[in-house]
């Protein structure tokens, strides 16, 4: 009897991982010169070197050096503060409003000599957005934003490329808008700046991040505007939106969690390339498909969705868009049409560096002369 019990215990112990690893292969701390410490930022870089050198070929070195060097910012002017004074001050610094320049000077030869032909509604940019950047090759920095006389901050510093998905979404006055993964709040703030939101639903799964989003809104948007725009901040699971609020929204922004390429190369804390988060990272594309599907399901037929990430990866970008469209067609019998953003891209070519070979959507790639991005975005229209 004792022998049987003994054997059972031994088997159980054998099953524990520790005992099955041959003694010689366990890390011998006393012999190791250094602990096998490989920072997540380094793992991220290794991962990128492997994938992106193939994906981008000769372009990869210039993208790589830009990712590893200080990024460039844009100053999104707060329309709820004294925006004309703020704009003048920013111009004094030799920065210029790239949105204004793109829309009013980016038009190709006008038909009959008029300077600002209004573009057709289907690809109109969201209005009222003012964002200043320094010229190509100018590495000046903006001073930190300050609190203005109206009790709100004068501008919001962000990666200027982050504004492009919001511009591409093409808000129009009176739109009901959903920002499915809203934190930390730069794009949400931009949506409010357009002045077009009849309702704005801003959601983020993480309560702490939703808290940050609240803080941003409080610092930039006066209470009465928040009330008028019916801003609602939630921290529900974004994947459930199809069931929660199906077919409702005019415009939906799905700015999904991704490998945050630039951030992952510099920040060690909570880095998704940590070995302990490997599974989570590998499941990202699936999560992204689910979120985009939910966003599309929450859109009313005829409404528009913009999907965006801050990653360079095919698997998180085009692959997700194409996969979701297929999923919606097969499982829900919903037809989704991808909008061509070529004209939109041309408007902003002078400020940003775009990857020329995206199958669907557009990709801003970092370049030392214009160190914005990465930012992928794709605009879709829900047809049925």
């Amino acid at each position, binding site marked *: 009897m004792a022998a049987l019990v003994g054997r059972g215990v031994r088997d159980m112990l054998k099953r524990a991982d520790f005992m099955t690893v041959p003694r010689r292969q366990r890390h011998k701390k006393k012999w190791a010169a250094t602990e096998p410490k490989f920072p997540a930022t380094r793992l991220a870089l290794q991962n990128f070197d492997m994938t992106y050198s193939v994906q981008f070929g000769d372009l990869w*070195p210039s993208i790589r*050096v830009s990712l590893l060097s200080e990024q460039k*910012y844009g100053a999104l002017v707060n329309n709820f503060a004294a925006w004309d004074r703020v704009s003048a001050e920013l111009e004094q610094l030799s920065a210029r409003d790239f949105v204004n320049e793109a829309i009013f000077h980016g038009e190709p030869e006008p038909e009959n000599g008029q300077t600002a032909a209004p573009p057709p509604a289907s690809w109109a940019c969201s209005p009222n957005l003012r964002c200043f950047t320094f010229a190509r090759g100018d590495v000046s920095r903006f001073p930190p934003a300050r609190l203005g006389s109206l009790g709100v901050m004068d501008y919001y510093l962000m990666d200027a490329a982050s504004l492009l998905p919001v511009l591409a979404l093409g808000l129009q006055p009176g739109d009901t808008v959903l920002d499915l993964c809203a934190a930390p709040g730069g794009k949400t703030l931009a949506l409010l700046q357009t002045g077009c939101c009849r309702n704005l639903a801003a959601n983020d799964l993480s309560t702490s991040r939703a808290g940050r989003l609240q803080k941003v809104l409080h610092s930039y948007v006066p209470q009465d505007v928040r009330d008028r725009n019916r801003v609602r901040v939630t921290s529900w699971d974004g994947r459930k939106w199809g069931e929660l609020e199906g077919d409702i929204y005019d415009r939906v922004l799905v700015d999904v969690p991704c490998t945050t390429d630039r951030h992952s190369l510099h920040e060690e804390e909570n880095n998704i390339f940590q070995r302990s988060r490997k599974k989570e990272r590998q499941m990202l594309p699936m999560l992204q498909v689910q979120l985009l599907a939910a966003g599309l399901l929450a859109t009313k037929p005829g409404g528009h969705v913009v999907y965006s990430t801050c990653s360079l990866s095919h698997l998180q970008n085009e692959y997700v868009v194409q996969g979701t469209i297929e999923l919606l067609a097969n499982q829900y019998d919903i037809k989704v049409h991808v909008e061509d953003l070529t004209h939109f891209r041309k408007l902003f070519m002078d400020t940003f560096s775009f990857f020329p070979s995206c199958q669907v959507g557009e990709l801003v790639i970092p370049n030392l002369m214009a160190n914005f991005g990465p930012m992928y975005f794709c605009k879709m229209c829900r047809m049925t």
Partner: protein
Amino acid sequence: MAALGRQVLDWHRLIPLTWSLIARQTTRPGEQKRTTAFLLRKLTMVSSGGGLGESPSVEPQKYAQEPEHRTGLTQCLLEKQRTAVEREKVVSSLLDMGFSDVHVNELLSIQPGTHPQQLLDIISELILLGLNPEPVCVALKKSPQLLKLPVMHMKKRSSYLRKLGLGEGKLKRVLYCCPEIFTMRQRDIESIVGVLKEKCLFTVKQVTEILHRCPCVLREDPGELEYKFQYAYFRMGIKHVDVVKTDFLQYSMTKTKERHVFLERLGRYQTPDKKGQTLVPNPLLKDILRVSEAEFLAKTACSSAEEFGVFKELLAREEEESEGRMADAGSPEEAGP
């Protein structure tokens, strides 16, 4: 009398040389001309006088009529005789050492105030250290302050340089690039040598090689020199032998960092791992540091001048900020997606 006789004999020996000196004489102002004229007068007196023995006595006879001037002028003339004689000795020694007449002229006119013996002593030390006449001339013309050095100091420094292995012709390049090697303080040289030997662990032979090939290291701050070596060894993975072979230490730290970090971030340079291996072969050091910026960009970095320009600015700022440990002054609250 005997002394005077000796002097006469000296004169006799010197006459042909003096002739040649005068014959090649170009217009040289001041003392040189007076000396020449004086010598010429002596010469004509000797040749016309017929008897060598007469010349010394010409002076006293000439001035016999003016007793009151005799002491001052005689002294002055004797002075001039002495200087001229010494000068002639020096000239002859220089010619013996292998200097050409042209060289001798040049050397004598570098610092006209220099005592000829001083000139000879300094030059002798340089010759003894293995320098050839031509380089000596060039070096002294470039750095006339060397002629002002006390001879004892010169001798001591020379022996120290020999100890460092910088005799036998190795000195030429060092002297061209860094003439201060004679004028600077002994302990400053020692501190540089000390850094190379004790901190960087170069062999004695390697230290000589470094001083010979990159004399400018003598001008560097010892701490910065050590940092430069550490950057090569630890950051770039370059071994001692290659640090010497590629003259790594002569390039400024700024230039090295700019080019190295640029390549590293482009993914074109990798610090070798413990086994000395890299995923892709690193470019040769000469293709990084020795080439011009244009060639570096075209061949090694495969990038544009404007991108490199921006990169240099960004790197300079990074360096400044990490040094000053400033809290990010201009950073935004959040960079938001």
